[in-house]
């Protein structure tokens, strides 16, 4: 194969590793979940004071966490978080800057886990808002289920980040 060199074991240094193939379903699931979560935070599906979807619902969710953030920080988080999620999720699926996208998602998950722990510690009875109005895996209210869900996704992100040669990628970048 031109443009690549062979290792002592005879494999191309650019060919996917076993972990690269193992990570394919992880990338599709994790990237898909983040893209889905972002979509629900960007597109409003409900109205009224009960909604957690769309920018309005997500802003209320952030406020409900009672972090004493200034208004500009709440607004900035409301709009930047889902866009970062959707771009990182799409890149993870497509295999563009795969490990960088996994690092971004891992960083977001660390922040989310810290926020959820703080909500549990303070005993707040609030919606997670993780997937907007949807709650595919856990009850809508913040609980240990959400923490376990995010720790599972963080483990997947770390596995993707630690894998050097991924399979089925748009580019080797």
């Amino acid at each position, binding site marked *: 194969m031109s443009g690549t060199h062979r290792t002592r074991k005879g494999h191309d240094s650019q060919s996917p590793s076993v972990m690269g193939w193992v990570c394919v379903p992880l990338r599709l699931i994790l990237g898909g979940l983040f893209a889905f979560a972002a979509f629900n935070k*960007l597109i409003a599906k*409900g109205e009224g*004071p*009960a*909604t957690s979807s769309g*920018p*309005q619902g997500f*802003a*209320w969710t952030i*406020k*409900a966490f009672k972090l004493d953030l200034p*208004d500009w920080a*709440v*607004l*900035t988080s*409301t*709009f*930047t*978080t*889902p*866009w*970062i*999620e*959707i*771009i*990182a999720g799409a*890149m993870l699926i497509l295999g563009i*800057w795969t*490990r*960088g*996208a996994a*690092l*971004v998602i891992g*960083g977001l998950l660390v922040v989310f886990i810290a926020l959820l722990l703080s909500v549990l510690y303070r005993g707040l*009875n609030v*919606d997670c808002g993780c997937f907007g*109005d949807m*709650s595919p895996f856990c*009850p*809508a*209210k913040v*609980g240990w289920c959400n923490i376990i869900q995010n720790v599972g996704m963080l483990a997947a992100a770390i596995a993707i*980040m630690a894998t*050097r040669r991924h399979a089925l990628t748009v580019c080797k*970048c």
Partner: protein
Amino acid sequence: MKPAGVIIPAVLIVAIGGGIGLADLALRKDKVKLDRPEPPPLDLVLPPVKPTPAGEATNPQPASTQASPDVDVKTEATSDPAAAAAPIAESARTPPAAPTATPPAALPKGHITVPQAAALYDQQAFFVDSRRKDVYVAGHVAGAFRADMVSFKAGDPMWVRGLPKEMILVVYCDGGDCDESEHVAQLLNASGFNAVYVMHDGFPGWKDAGHPVETGEGQE
């Protein structure tokens, strides 16, 4: 790939996503209100209740049968819920249920004390638990249905649609700073129920007063 080969793409992804997000913010920020609309004061009609001896709330019929249209809820109108609430506390002749029980005078509009709620319980009022499901399963007012704000996202829950609008509803959560019951009461109010009350001291106050509780899945 060197560490920089991971970090630089990550920074670029954050920069691109953040940039698009800020542009989106500039376009749509006027459509986002940071404060969730506060429920307007509940304009409630508190019916007269029969005197109930202390700690003898019975609610003999299970809550699931309370939606029957032949239940006589005796909703006599009075324009001042606070004034109407006061006789309940007197007629119930119930001493403060717990050291932490909130006196009636200190209650926000639309809120009732545990003894008042117990009197309504005996009149077949419909109790609504607005707490999380796991907390509800661990213990709730006997016969109470569960409905939190999420339950209303796809419209009124089925059991709400089956209730006569003149039914007396008592909503509760955990008392204290918990405001879920207030929001659910507001949603029930918006669904056409006029006699919706919030049990101010919530389930802890009810349980401490020795009123009927049950555990398990219940109904929602």
